[in-house]
């Protein structure tokens, strides 16, 4: 088994009142074990749809039309719903852009992370609490006992994103899919979250599929990256290759904008 995740010829259509939008066209990519892969592109390029398609989390008008999705050698497209559910959130987990709107506002932080711990690891109440507090400590929350009892709206965006990461990592996933996890955050907080993600990855050992529109993040973290444009992957390479010798016209356009106003 060479790749942890191997996607080939993925196509996703979105049916908007009878007119079909080909949101993702013939997309193929791989993520290796312990590898950090970045998919970069502008809004509407199909990055998020691609990320959601991996575990068939697509919103209802969107549908996978064709393609193969292999995870640990298992064909995710031909699994029973129950088996896919067991993989989704356990072996493959997600972190999204706005933690505030993905966390449940009526549950405390402890209860939400606890749900993942009890569901996937089958722990009972008391050990689950200890496990959750350990996770909160892992994501560098300084007083986990206090945060355990808080509701998401009582925490800042950066804190919520740490909570979200704790929840995603609770099940010890092999693959973490992070979809613009720092886009809603201030730059100083963004730097902290990215550093934390790097540390956790080294510590726990998971593969990271990172979706972003921000090329400076891509440059910072990517071992390999893909550029998406209008539903297709137009370029693939190491960060050095993409930033050094961009091949596709759109990549060059992105980099020109990045050179002007994307970096200091």
């Amino acid at each position, binding site marked *: 088994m060479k790749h942890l995740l191997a996607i080939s010829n993925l196509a996703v259509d979105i049916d908007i009142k009878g007119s079909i939008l080909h949101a993702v066209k013939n997309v193929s990519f791989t993520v290796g074990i312990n590898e950090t892969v970045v998919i970069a592109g*502008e809004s509407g390029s199909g990055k998020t749809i691609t990320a959601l398609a991996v575990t068939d989390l697509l919103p209802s008008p969107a549908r996978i039309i064709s393609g193969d999705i292999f995870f640990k050698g298992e064909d995710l497209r031909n699994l029973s719903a129950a088996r896919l559910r067991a993989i989704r959130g356990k072996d493959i987990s997600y972190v999204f852009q706005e933690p505030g709107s993905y966390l449940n506002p009526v549950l405390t932080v402890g209860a939400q992370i606890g749900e993942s711990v009890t569901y996937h690891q089958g722990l009972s109440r008391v050990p689950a609490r200890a496990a959750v507090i350990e996770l909160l400590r892992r994501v560098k929350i300084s007083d986990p006992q206090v945060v355990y009892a808080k509701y998401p709206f009582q925490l800042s*965006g950066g804190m919520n994103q740490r909570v979200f990461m704790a929840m995603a990592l609770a099940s010890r996933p092999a693959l973490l899919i992070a979809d613009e996890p720092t886009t809603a955050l201030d730059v*100083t907080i963004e730097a902290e979250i990215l550093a934390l993600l790097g540390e956790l990855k080294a510590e726990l050992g998971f593969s990271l599929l990172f979706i972003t529109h921000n*090329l400076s993040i891509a440059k910072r973290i990517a071992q390999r990256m893909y550029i998406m444009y209008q539903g297709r992957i137009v370029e693939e390479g190491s960060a050095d290759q993409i930033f050094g010798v961009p091949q596709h016209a759109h990549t060059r356009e992105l980099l*020109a904008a990045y050179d002007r*106003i*994307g*970096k*200091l």
Partner: protein
Amino acid sequence: MLIRVDNLSKIYPIERGWFRPACAAIAAVDSVSFEVEKEATLGIVGESGSGKTTLAKMLLNLIMPTQGAVIFDPAYVTNFRKDVQIVFQNPYASLNPKMRIGQILSEPLIIHKIAVKDEAEQRCRELLQLVGLDETALSRYPGQFSGGQRQRICLARALACGPKVLVLDEPLSSLDLTVQATLLELLLQLKLTMGLTYIFISHNLAVIKHIADSVLVMREGKIVERGSADQIFAVARHPYTQRLLAAARA
């Protein structure tokens, strides 16, 4: 001096509940003073919650300051509502979805009695051309445009009655980088041709570096550092500015 901001504060009380006295207060903007020269660009940077937008709204007299004053040169700014305009951050929330672009652009013309009917329509066409949009836009609704196009419409609306001062509150932040680069170019060009004064609010230091002559750095409602753009980007003195720069350069 075109604008003088003198010891400006906005203090919000924190209510404990109905009919109870406020238990504390938050100074969203705290004793801020600065000046803006004619035809200059002042950049205001700071993270979320630093009071940038509250300051912008007070400059426009959209909210009342708790204390202090904003004074525009009365010889230059003769009709405040016409001469001072704003472009907001979110182009999805600042255009009326039920109005056609033609109506949106001609409304300020009619209110300020600048043009009516055919003349107004002609002016709207010119405005669209100015911001690089096709005149077929006139009969369409905001929902039919992308974020970048909507922000161009917001800009056209702000330019409709020939303002002298433009407050731009994170005008590029919700847009793709390539769109940001084109709009930034457009803003620079419009400023030169129309002799505008910009107050440009952003959390993106690279954009500020590109457009601003002088810079204010805000944190928790206060100005923690000020200086010319060259100065701030070369030798930031305040630790907070240094942290911001380090994060942006990483």
